[in-house]
């Protein structure tokens, strides 16, 4: 993010970060998480699970802000994030 000036309380701002976990065997390749992640963290992978679907894969790990949209929008209970501390001021 670009600021026009540096905020005085920037040290207290913590931008969350999420560690994405995919339960690959549950995925049915609907593509919703990939399409609606606001940070383009995911893409459809080349691999496939035992049912023949292509699960998502994290392609931009640093971009994840743990918004949880993928977790909410997935119809399969196949993706979730674990929120972590992050020590960056900007993304």
């Amino acid at each position, binding site marked *: 993010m670009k600021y026009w000036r540096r905020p005085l309380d920037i040290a207290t701002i913590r931008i969350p970060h999420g560690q994405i*976990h995919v*339960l*690959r*065997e*549950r995925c*049915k*390749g*609907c*593509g*919703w998480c*990939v*399409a*609606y992640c606001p940070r383009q963290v995911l893409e*459809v992978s*080349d*691999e*496939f*699970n*035992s*049912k023949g*679907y*292509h*699960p998502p894969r994290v392609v931009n790990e640093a971009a994840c802000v743990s918004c949880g*949209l993928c*977790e*909410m*929008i*997935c*119809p*399969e*209970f*196949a993706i*979730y994030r674990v929120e972590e501390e992050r020590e960056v001021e900007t993304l």
Partner: protein
Amino acid sequence: MSEPTLRTEAKAVEPEAAPQERHPMDDLLREERLPHIWCSGCGIGTALTCFISALLKSGLDLDKVVVVSGIGCTGRVAGYVRLDSFHTTHGRAIPFATGLKLANPELKVVVFSGDGDLVTIGGNHFIHAARRNIDMTVICVNNFNYGMTGGQAGATTPVGAVTTTTPYGNYEHPFNLPYLAAASGAVYVARWTVLHVRRLERAISEALAKRGFSFVEVVSPCPTNFGRRHKQRTGLDTLRYYHERGIIRHGADPRSVDIELGGDIIEGKFIDIEKPTFSDCCAGIVQKAIAQ
């Protein structure tokens, strides 16, 4: 999304060798039955996710939460939640739920079923439970057809829609569910699509907290049996349609929120009122009865 290429180099991934990863919601799911039966691109799973999320935040005693469903794809929800759950006959989830609630008022009863089950075959029970203001939460997943049986027309199928029983286009006018619920006496009426997950979760939370007959319509894709016949080949196509044509209008007059084929989808919270429940009214006569 790019064109699919011939994936000759694609390789199968070994199912997790490590102890099976658990999803945070697995405590409330019968995970031994996952993956569930719903199609790729079906929105029922998302509706269920929003429900479980709302439930976990609600502070309710989960041992007292009961899910009752009917027959159909959405009706299978009862079989996947790790709560006391009842998968009843077609159209009869609401009276079954009525019996549960009135016999044990401590139960938190949620009816989770589809449009065909709840308002087509179940229409009579729907309007009477709303009329009586039985204290229950009804989550109706509306995918505009009878999906489980291959995509027949139902009471919410829009005019012109092609289904297996309307091969030349549906010529019956459908119900407007928020209008039906509101006119019947529901105290909470909202509609969201499965795209609007956060607002759907919040609506479900409000419906759970509300005393009386609370109704949430969840508009959902059915790519296999509905979308496919209407130029929405995948669930994602339908979500994009919701994105484009979904309009949020809180407090809209329920009369105005009809859904037409290819038209706008008005979403929001339409009704949120207070009214004595069936049990409140019943309690009113008990003193008189005992005195007799």
